[in-house]
């Protein structure tokens, strides 16, 4: 056995150029597969990481996926708001542990502004139940304070106490420039959509929209001054959605039904986990296509491997005959070829492990910084290990063909 391993290694080494290219092509394909898999899992994780906070999401009646997207991911726009009265009414239910309102609509530069209450910062949790933490500062103290996500701070280079102006609507030129806000807190990176949010209090949103009617500014005397607001003026009239946490998950369906049957206003409640799973099933089609393509790339690299083994067989007939003459059996010749394939694929796996770790180390921060794709840097998982075993196994299986050819040749090849 030892002699075989030595022979295989030295023989491969003597053909280092071709062997190296084969290893490279196999390595690249494995790295491709692993990267796509990491991206996929990362996407899934950050996707599902957003739904850890509540049991139900309350919103106006529209598509449930739509409600999920704008309430949790701040993607798309709500068609309708829900009235503050209905919100108040529903929050009276005794089964509810807590309920946090959110209000969308405005923006700051490319980031969306979300109105909410102080509870949001305590209740919001993501991934494995992690809570929001502050890099700097704290949540809002005054009406015109904002808390910004880490991406907002990074991209726009904001510091505490910087002054920012909110624009009306999304991608709008009309600014609420008479109400400058002050950055009161900067959140730590979460890898969720919160990183891209500008958070303000519901009262502040109400205040800046006092003199707005149906999307345009109607100057009314006197109100455009902060000091003119009284507390009761700032009670919101409507909100976009609310996140509900129940005391006991048993009551989820009961509360959901009650909200859906609410008679004074068309409301709906969705269970985020269920809707998200539905959504993910749609998205995962592309995911599967990508995985299939990268699996094909591996297959083609393995075909390249057997092509290499096959093409050298003829040149190596004398070599094999010589081994036979000194006592090697045809079975030994067969094993030698399998061993070479095994070494090549093992080296490729080794290289791809090193390469993926390097990529993790150098590329993940860039992905995060430039594209906001946050991937957890996890070293080899059990599934990767299974994957490597499958690659090795397949490599050996496909190499049986050239090895069998060598076996057949060596039965007759002597002098």
């Amino acid at each position: 056995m030892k002699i075989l391993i030595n022979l295989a290694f030295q023989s491969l080494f003597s053909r280092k150029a071709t062997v190296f290219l084969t290893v490279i092509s196999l390595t690249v394909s494995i790295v491709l597969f692993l990267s796509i898999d990491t991206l996929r899992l990362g996407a899934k994780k950050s996707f599902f990481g957003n739904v850890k906070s509540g049991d139900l999401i309350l919103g106006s009646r529209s598509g449930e996926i739509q409600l999920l997207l704008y309430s949790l991911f701040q993607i798309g726009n709500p068609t309708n708001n829900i009235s503050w009265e209905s919100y108040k009414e529903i929050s009276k239910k005794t089964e509810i542990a807590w309920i946090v309102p959110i209000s969308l609509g405005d923006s700051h530069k490319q980031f969306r502004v979300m109105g909410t209450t102080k509870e949001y910062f305590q209740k919001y949790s993501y991934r494995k139940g992690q809570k929001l933490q502050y890099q700097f500062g704290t949540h809002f103290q005054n009406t015109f304070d904002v808390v910004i996500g880490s991406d907002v701070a990074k991209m726009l280079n904001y510091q505490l106490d910087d002054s920012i102006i909110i624009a009306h609507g999304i991608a709008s030129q009309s600014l609420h420039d008479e109400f400058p806000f002050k950055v009161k807190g900067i959140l730590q990176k979460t890898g969720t959509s919160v990183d891209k949010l500008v958070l303000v209090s519901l009262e502040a949103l109400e205040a800046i929209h006092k003199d707005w009617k149906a999307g345009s500014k109607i100057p009314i005397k006197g109100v455009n001054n902060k000091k003119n607001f009284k507390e009761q003026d700032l009670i919101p009239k409507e909100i976009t959605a609310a996140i509900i946490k129940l005391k006991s998950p048993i009551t989820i369906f009961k509360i959901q039904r009650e909200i859906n049957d609410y008679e004074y206003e068309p409301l709906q409640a969705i269970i985020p986990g269920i809707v998200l799973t539905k959504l993910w099933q749609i998205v995962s089609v592309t995911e599967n296509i990508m995985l299939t393509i990268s699996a094909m790339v591996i297959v083609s690299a393995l075909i390249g491997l057997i092509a290499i083994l096959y093409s050298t067989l003829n040149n190596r007939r004398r070599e094999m005959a010589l081994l036979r003459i000194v006592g090697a059996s045809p079975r030994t010749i067969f094993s030698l070829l399998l061993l070479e394939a095994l070494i090549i694929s093992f080296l490729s796996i080794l290289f791809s492990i090193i390469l993926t770790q390097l990529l993790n180390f150098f590329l993940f921060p860039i992905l995060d910084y430039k594209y906001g794709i946050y991937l957890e840097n996890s070293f080899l998982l059990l599934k990767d290990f299974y994957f490597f075993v499958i690659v090795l196994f397949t490599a050996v299986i496909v190499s049986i063909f050239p090895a069998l050819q060598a076996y057949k040749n060596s039965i007759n090849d002597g002098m």
Partner: protein
Amino acid sequence: MNNALDIKNLLFKWNKKDGFSLKIKNLSIKRNKKVIMFGQSGSGKSTLLNLISGILSPVSGTIIIKDTITNNLSSNKKDLFRANNIGVIFQQFNILDYISPINNIMLPCFFTNFKKKNKKFFYNRAFNLATKLDLKRNILLQKNSSQLSVGQKQRIAIIRAVINKPFLIVADEPTSALDNKNKVNFLDLLVNICDTEKITLLMVSHDTSLKKYFDSYITLEKIVQK
């Protein structure tokens, strides 16, 4: 038994229909004799050597080497028997270029039961034989064998053929790639080693002038049956 090799009623056929077939009623080579075999190209000389070394198996008949009916052995035993008892020298490609000359020499040992305690003995034997054949230690210890000259390669092939103290050496036109001076050199060395180590030698050649180095000669056409 005073015969090193006994072939009786041998019949061999290449697989293909109306392919070449070889039929030999009787062939014996006495112990410690050196025999040269002539024959036309395509007459089956290499095929016969492959049968003797056990690479090929006859359809019928017996091949007896060292009192063992080798064609009855299982294929694994045949391979082991060859590694232990038969040294082989080819016309060319006697050397694996990608391993060191010393490892080339040791190849038959690697494929037999090469015990730890014998290791030293075989390496010493290899270096001693090499010195006799004018191959210096540092030549044997080169990383790989691609730099060796044709003559050096053939000398290493001799050492490899005898390293395991074989009973019989078969050589298939080992001198045809060598120039005159190297040819004479090579034969002197081979014949000398076979004499001192008491090894029976069967060598195939086209060169009838080499008769003088051998005890007797065979012409294949004369012993095959049509």
